């Protein structure tokens, strides 16, 4: 394709994983190799897209050359590209982690074969959603993501996983249908479905209904309290790489769409913004308490996702309606921070479980085998999730509190502080178990140090820590193409 005047990176970013998924499905014996190649080449395409966005601003592809609203446009601006890069980066390391987690001695052949097509279809949907500029197309992408994610949830084939996956599917499909109903109301009022049409729209009753329906659907999909009921079961019972993808990436899509819509739709009045923040605060408290009570390591990590989603909504609401022009950046930074750190943490938790043989928190200090590097990784990602400097989580929380302070909204600062203390408390339950290694006086087992498989989560955790230093360029990058909707 070298004779092309310009390679169309946005299209390739969506189609490469799709082709990879098909190849990996058709040739199940080579699934892992093909899958890895597809993930890496997708990441390369994303890197090229990042360079292009840096050089010339937002990139638009008019599929079929019809142009919106008749056709569908793909648009890569700073925020989209940042999330694409996040997906690609997390995806590479989770894929590497999966090579170990689904190694022949740990997983049966079916798990090993079907993980790759499902994960690549998920990647197709994620990339497609981040590039979409059309709300019906977003619905279709949500469907692709939902089915692939349900497949990943039940990957282990255990009964609890299947049950949690079914519950997840009900929630997910209900959320998608609510979103679709909102899309219907938008078309009823505006007669078009592209973002540009939304920006130009005058407030109308049908649009209010549409916003209400779409936000309700998205909140259900992002598991904001009290609609989080499906998340802990689904994320705790999936296998570790699948949990990392579900918690790190999948819930981010609905958050991203939510951020976009609040920029485009003639919506948010003060009351709605405050309601989002209040639900976020409730999620922080309730999730924190449940994480303190959790008996299993992976369940604790899953509840911490509920907390972090609440935090993202608090960041969104930190300075009320007037602050929305800035607040989305704090929310986006926290999305990024959580994706990287949580993927690392789930992979590390999976490694610990693989080595120790169980993940009961109270017995973690009684094991012969101490996977120290995995424990270290877990601690590093906990630092980012708690929000200690210099991590990315710290940068996000700092932005949150700075904005809240400037607007005089002290209650959001109080909520963030309480959330931080709670997260210190529940992560300490785990870390204490790692440190008290004198409880069992027996010869130390074979894997007391590290294994090559620890590399992937460790690099992710280190990036979560180190990216905090790059917060300023990241913030500058995500503003490329802002305000959204003005043509590039």
């Amino acid at each position, binding site marked *: 394709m070298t004779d092309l005047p310009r390679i169309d990176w946005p299209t390739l970013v969506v189609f490469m994983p799709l082709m990879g998924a*098909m190849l990996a499905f058709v040739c199940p014996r080579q699934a892992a190799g093909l899958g890895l190649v597809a993930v890496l080449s997708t990441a390369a395409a994303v890197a090229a897209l990042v360079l292009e966005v840096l050089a010339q601003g937002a990139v638009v592809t008019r599929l079929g050359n019809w142009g919106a609203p008749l056709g569908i446009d793909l648009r890569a601006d700073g925020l989209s590209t940042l999330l694409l890069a996040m997906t690609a980066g997390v995806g590479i390391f989770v894929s590497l982690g999966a090579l170990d987690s689904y190694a022949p001695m740990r997983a049966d052949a079916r798990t090993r074969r*079907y993980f790759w097509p499902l994960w690549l279809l998920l990647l197709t949907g994620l990339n497609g959603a981040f590039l979409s500029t059309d709300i019906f197309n977003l619905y279709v992408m949500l469907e*692709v993501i939902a089915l692939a994610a349900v497949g990943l949830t039940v990957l282990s084939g255990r009964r609890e996983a299947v049950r949690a996956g079914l519950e997840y599917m009900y929630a997910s499909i209900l959320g998608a249908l609510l979103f679709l109903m909102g899309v219907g109301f938008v078309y009823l009022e505006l007669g078009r479905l592209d973002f540009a049409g939304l920006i130009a729209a005058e407030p109308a009753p049908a649009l*209010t209904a549409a916003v209400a329906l779409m936000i309700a659907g998205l909140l259900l999909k992002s598991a904001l309290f009290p609609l989080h009921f499906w998340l802990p079961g689904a994320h705790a019972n999936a296998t570790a790489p699948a949990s990392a993808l579900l918690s790190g990436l999948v819930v981010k899509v609905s958050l991203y769409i939510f951020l976009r819509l609040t920029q485009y739709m003639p919506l948010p009045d003060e009351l709605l913004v405050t309601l989002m923040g209040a639900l976020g605060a409730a999620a922080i408290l309730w999730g924190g308490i449940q994480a303190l009570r959790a008996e299993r390591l992976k369940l604790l990590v899953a509840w911490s996702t509920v907390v972090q989603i609440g935090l993202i909504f608090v960041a969104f609401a930190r300075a009320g309606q007037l602050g929305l022009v800035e607040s989305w950046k704090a929310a986006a930074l926290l999305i990024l921070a959580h994706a990287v750190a949580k993927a690392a943490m789930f992979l590390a938790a999976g490694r610990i479980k693989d080595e120790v043989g169980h993940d009961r928190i109270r017995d973690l200090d009684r094991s012969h085998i101490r996977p120290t590097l995995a424990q270290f990784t877990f601690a590093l990602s906990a630092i980012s999730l708690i929000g200690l400097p210099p991590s990315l989580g710290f940068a996000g929380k700092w932005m949150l509190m700075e904005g809240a302070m400037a607007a005089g909204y002290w209650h959001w600062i109080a909520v963030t502080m309480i959330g931080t203390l709670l997260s210190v408390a529940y992560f300490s339950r785990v870390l204490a178990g790692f440190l008290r290694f004198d409880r069992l006086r027996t010869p130390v087992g074979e894997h007391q140090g590290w294994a090559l498989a620890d590399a992937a989560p460790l690099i992710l955790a280190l990036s979560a820590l180190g990216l905090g230093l790059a917060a300023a360029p990241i913030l500058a990058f995500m503003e490329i193409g802002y305000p959204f909707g003005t043509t590039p």
Partner: protein
Amino acid sequence: MADPLLIFDALLGVALIALAIAVLVVRDRFAMIVLFIIFGLMTALAWVRLSAPDVALAEAAIGTGLAGALMLKTLHHIRAAPAAPVPVSVGVVFANMGFCAMVFVGLAIAFMATSLEAPGLAPQVAQNIDASGVAHPVTAVLLNFRAYDTLMEVVVLLAAIIAVWMIERGIEQAPARHLGEIYRGFARLALPAIVVIGTYLLWVGAYAPGGAFQGGAALAAVGLLLLLSGLYRPQPAHRPIARLGFVLGIAVFASVALLVASGGRLPFEYPPAHAKTLILLIEGVVTISIAVTLAALFHGREPEAIPVSETRA
């Protein structure tokens, strides 16, 4: 003088609501499914009355025919499970009813306050239809203007069948009592007819209601008949072909979309001279994939070596 069709519409509306209530109220699961199928057929009729024959065809073929078959198959598998529903307290029921009523009233107000005059995208579609390669506006939208959406809808089907092949392993080999036989003589008579209908639906889509999804659903009925009459029994050796069948449509569709993007064109921008040929090619392979995938969804599991107890002479 009332329009006789108006009376028909009113009756249809009442019947739809009554059927919906009946589906929810009836206790017997088999009756529930049958009522749901009738409900689906009535919905298809309603779509016809709303001048949306494409949606009506899809509703009848997929929403009613195939979904009904899937539900009956599921019922067969869970027949052993206790049917008694978990009792729900009256308070919860009323709270739910109140909440739903509020949502309904809110949406109804929003709907009533909207003028239904907005032209939508129909004028633009009409304006560009000559360049699309087909004469039927719905096909033009699905296979050209918004082909990207359609491609991704087929991807959803692929994700579904992979997920189903995954999940089934978690369930211990179902005590699959035989699902009842379809008389082979009937199958032999019906099969050619269904093949003709499916192909016709696909072909006619270029200028009249019909198309890949409807044709695919009709052809999937061929698969169902073959499975139910025992004329075809999935073997482990057939898995590679099945996999190819699932991805064929997407592979061709995506390749065409990318390959046309040369010589200054964009992805999905079919050269006008070949648009009709390309669209027919895409529809043809997508129909095959949809038919194979839907039939495989009905079969509901990856073909494994079949236990001796299940093989019947």
